[in-house]
């Protein structure tokens, strides 16, 4: 029965794709806590994952699961009362956790760029598009000659599908979709190998969202840039990502290729997530879920999902299920699959 399940999973996605050749990002045992008067909230509980070159990885989960905190930690932007307790974040083979502020300035925007949530609302309202992009280039590469900046900005605008005249416009003269594309242009200005996009289309209408998503795909294909796409719209994720990492209460519970996760989610939480997506193609009865996340200050011993899990059994309440590989590219943190994981390590 175990072999049958493995065979079925393998038929959905070819293994060789996921033998890690060249990770651009390697996160190992990352821990982030937030201090509160009544104890530390464990926002990120020792997570590990890799992102390959030229890959878009989705990072999904409910609000409060730790996905934005993870992004902030990778960028070393965690502010007090948050703090990084430990772990490694290797960007292009350099662990950035111990770096000094000036060393970080070298990394940011050159190796690692961010499109933050609500980015389009944080464009400077009194600067033209040209000046804003030029600003971001000069902040990280101050000695770039003006002529090169001009050429670069022309290239960037064309890459994101904005007309050349957009460079002379102010943010309020742009639509939501256009503003977001300016933010994408700013993120790729120095050609970083890795971009983190936090809900890049959340405030946009459906049609505009499609246009911006198209732009993201275009950019990825032409520059071969890797991306982490944070979001909760599972429909949008399916259109864009190669693999998805699912987070719950500060832990990664599953990492799976997109083709597999939508058809055969393994972790009970992922199953819940997938089944609760409303469809525009099929009218089906609503899937209900129950229960709440536990208090993040006092996680119960064992699995963090035990209170809500329909498949919970005794082992779940005692032993913490670690993220383990079921096949190359597919990892799950759940005792239901302990046997599959053992099979893999043989």
């Amino acid at each position, binding site marked *: 029965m175990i072999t049958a399940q493995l065979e079925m999973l393998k038929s959905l996605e070819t293994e060789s794709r996921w033998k890690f050749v060249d990770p651009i990002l390697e996160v190992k045992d990352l821990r982030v806590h937030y201090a509160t008067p009544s104890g530390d909230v464990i926002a990120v509980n020792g997570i590990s994952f890799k992102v390959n070159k030229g890959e878009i990885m989705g990072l999904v989960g409910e609000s409060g699961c730790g996905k934005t905190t993870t992004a902030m930690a990778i960028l070393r932007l965690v502010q007090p009362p948050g703090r990084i307790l430990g772990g490694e974040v290797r960007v292009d083979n350099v662990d950035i956790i111990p770096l000094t502020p000036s060393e970080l300035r070298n990394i940011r925007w050159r190796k690692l760029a961010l499109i933050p949530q609500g980015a389009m609302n944080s464009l400077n309202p009194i600067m033209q598009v040209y000046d804003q992009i030029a600003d971001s280039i000069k902040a990280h590469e101050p000695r770039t000659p003006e002529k090169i900046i001009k050429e670069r900005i022309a290239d960037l605008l064309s890459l994101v599908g904005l007309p050349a005249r957009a460079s002379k416009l102010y943010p309020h003269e742009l639509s939501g979709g256009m503003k977001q594309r300016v933010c994408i242009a700013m993120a790729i200005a120095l050609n970083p190998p890795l971009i983190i996009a936090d809900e890049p289309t959340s405030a946009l209408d*459906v*049609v505009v969202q499609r246009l911006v998503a198209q732009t993201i795909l275009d950019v990825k294909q032409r520059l071969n840039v890797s991306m982490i796409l944070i979001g909760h719209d599972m*429909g949008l994720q399916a259109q864009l990502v190669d693999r998805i990492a699912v987070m719950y209460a500060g832990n990664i519970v599953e990492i799976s290729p997109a083709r597999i996760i939508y058809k055969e989610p393994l972790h009970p939480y992922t199953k819940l997530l997938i089944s609760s*997506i409303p469809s525009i193609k099929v009218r089906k009865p609503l899937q209900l879920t129950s229960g709440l996340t536990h208090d993040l200050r006092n996680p119960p011993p064992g699995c963090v999902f035990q209170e809500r899990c329909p498949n919970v059994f005794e082992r779940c309440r005692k032993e913490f299920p670690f993220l383990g590989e079921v096949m190359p590219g597919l990892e799950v943190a759940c005792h239901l699959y302990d046997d599959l994981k053992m099979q893999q390590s043989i």
Partner: protein
Amino acid sequence: MSYPLLEIKNATKIYSRGGTFFGSKKQVIALQNFSIKIEPEPATITTIAGESGSGKTTLASAILGFVGLTSGQVLYKGSDISLMSKQQHLDYRREVQAVFQDPYEVYNPFYRVKHVFEVAVNNFKLAKNRNDKRELIENALNVVGLRGKEVLEKYPHQLSGGQRQRMMIARAFLLKPRLIVADEPVSMVDVSLRSMILDIMLRMRDDFKISFLYITHDLSTAYQIGDQIHILYQGLVVERGKTTNVIENPKHPYIQLLIDSVPVPDPDHIWNEKLELSAEEETRGDMNSACRFYARCNKKQDCCLVKHPPILYKMDGSDHEVGCHLYKPL
């Protein structure tokens, strides 16, 4: 003679904004000639769908009496809400309730959440004594799957978005409304908790005969729970009818584009074709403009520039109507 529960006749709302010292105020037509009838029975969930700028929020505000219309009427049980007597108005306020998008800002953060129920019960004198009040509130909470002892003594920030929103629905339910206007009730709630709230709306319709006006931009959830749907674009209805008909068989080019652009959660089912940039450009029309969608339409014809908004053409005898010259009867 029996009146519809809610009837809106040719509602138009025009906002004037801008204008320099030298004049030239700009007019924005938020809503134009909108009409709808919601019958007292059977209880239904009517969806008003549209993107931002479509006029759906203006419509909700007009129905709830927050803004006045430029022209047209909102009639509740036959009476114009802007001309109601004090008693009629009180009844209206009780029978037409609202649930809003943001489940946090509706609470006063200084009070425990039980405060919202107390205010409702006291204002409308719903209970004779403490015990009655407690029972009333407990029943309302049970309908939404919550228990008083778990939530009433908490402060808003101690509850999840889904719980806060459910409490707001419970508060509306407490007043025994005939109609609940729900303006994007799930868009700020986590995806895995949305079904729960939508399910509550369905049960309130079926078990308690409460009708809903579900206002949203999310066609997927509209598809799951709506009976009838009206889709707005720049203040005008472009298509309406039975939800399943409209979403499974959209006729208006705008609706076809919209439905085609909803991302399907299946990596083997990507968007059909690459969208051209013209799909995004948009100009806002004025009262005498022709079809608002002309600039973005891939099926436009000369007649679409004729100077009147498209009338709604009926599709083969059903209540499915489209505001597009493609469907002009020959």
